[in-house]
């Protein structure tokens, strides 16, 4: 993946007219995150099935690991990928000023106006390098959800060593619910995110080749 993105960068540099929408580092961390989050969700469903919080379980066709022990193995292996990649993303997002440039400012009015425009089919996709207010809200929100799912996961994994963190989530049992609902929020985000990427395919292209 990295060799592809490097050669793409060189091509982009040779033709300065084509605007890079997604820099290489964003594309790399995005796709690593995509793999990590899918592994985490599927193995997490396997773990959930061992002691369901609600009156349903996930079909074994969409879980990872084959049994509880396998699910835990996948979950606690993929967590490193998710967390290290996530930290790289947050660091670069802050250091390069991408978060400030792309995600701010967000206003309630802006979000409402852009939601209306989107629902009436009047939202422009001409300039993919600028996010509309709904995108800004969703992308900022999902970063917060990402931080919360990792913290609640740590609270469940280490309720003795990190007992203050666990207490912050209202105790072990509540932390499990927080962890579950953050997963649900990510799955909800994914449905919208993937659907919109398919409706506006050039956004998907930008996340693969940069332009």
């Amino acid at each position: 993946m990295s060799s592809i993105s490097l050669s793409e960068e060189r091509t982009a540099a040779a033709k300065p007219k084509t605007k890079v929408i997604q820099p290489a580092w964003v594309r790399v961390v995005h796709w690593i995150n995509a793999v990590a989050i899918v592994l985490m969700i599927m193995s997490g469903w396997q773990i959930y099935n061992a002691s369901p919080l609600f009156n349903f379980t996930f079909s074994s066709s969409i879980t990872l690991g084959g049994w509880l022990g396998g699910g835990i193995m996948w979950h606690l292996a993929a967590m490193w990928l998710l967390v290290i990649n996530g930290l790289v993303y947050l660091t670069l997002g802050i250091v390069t000023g991408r978060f400030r440039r792309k995600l701010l400012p967000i206003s309630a009015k802006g979000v409402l106006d852009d939601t209306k425009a989107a629902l009436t089919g009047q939202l422009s996709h001409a300039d993919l390098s600028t996010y509309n207010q709904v995108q800004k809200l969703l992308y900022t929100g999902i970063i917060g959800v990402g931080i919360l799912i990792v913290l609640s996961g740590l609270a469940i994994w280490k309720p003795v060593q990190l007992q203050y963190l666990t207490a912050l989530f209202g105790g072990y049992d509540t932390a499990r619910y927080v962890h579950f609902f953050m997963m649900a929020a990510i799955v909800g985000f994914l449905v919208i995110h993937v659907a919109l990427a398919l409706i506006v395919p050039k956004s998907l292209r930008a996340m693969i080749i940069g332009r």
Partner: protein
Amino acid sequence: MIRKIRSLIIPGVDKDLLVKDATKLMPDLSRRRFIASGASFGALTLLTGCDVSDSLSAENLLTHMSKFNDMVQARIFNPNTLAPTYSEKDIKRPFPFNAFYAEDDAPNVDGKEWKLEVSGLVQDKKSWTLDELHKLPEVSQITRHICVEGWSAIGSWQGTPLRDFLKLVGADTNAKWVHFRCAEDYTSSLDMPTAMHAQTQMTFKFDNQLLPRAYGFPMKIRVPTKLGFKNPKYVVAMEVTNDYKGGYWEDQGYNDFSGS
């Protein structure tokens, strides 16, 4: 064992036959479960485009990661950090029975016949009767039992600190492991730092009553800094050792340290 298998992989050898042979070599449940869960690895292949359909190499990677996680957890483990304690009213009643068998199949140990066998790197290898053990100083704890499955329940356990017993029998506390064997041949290993933790207890009572059969009569090891499966019940033998001897669930793939 995994290394053995690797050295067996020769180009041109039929992989399926190889896996079959390997399974015969290692008749433990985990391997069969891993091979049976091949469909899941297939799903991963679709996602990443990488060839991880070879379940042996995927298992290998996951096993290495699990060992890495053991090391990380051993470092995170602070011997002075106590598990949170709770009050009487928080105790779950009835406290859930949990094992890999039904409650009716739980060992029915005769307390008069029973003896705790103590072996390995200890000075005094004498076996202990239940009466002798009941005379040891008693401490009490109300802590949260957390199952590997995810559920938790607060219980009340009384017994003697394992570290005091280890000192009493002259155990080499520089050894790596304390290995437990149970009446139904359940086994589990505790790392020495956890065995020496202040709250790790040789338990003889639940909720101030003689330990009932369901909760591990005559003796359970209560470890509030570990997941439930590292809290063996119906214990009959304790061995201090430098050799890693695994355990019933550990051998099947549950993370060995499994610390809370």
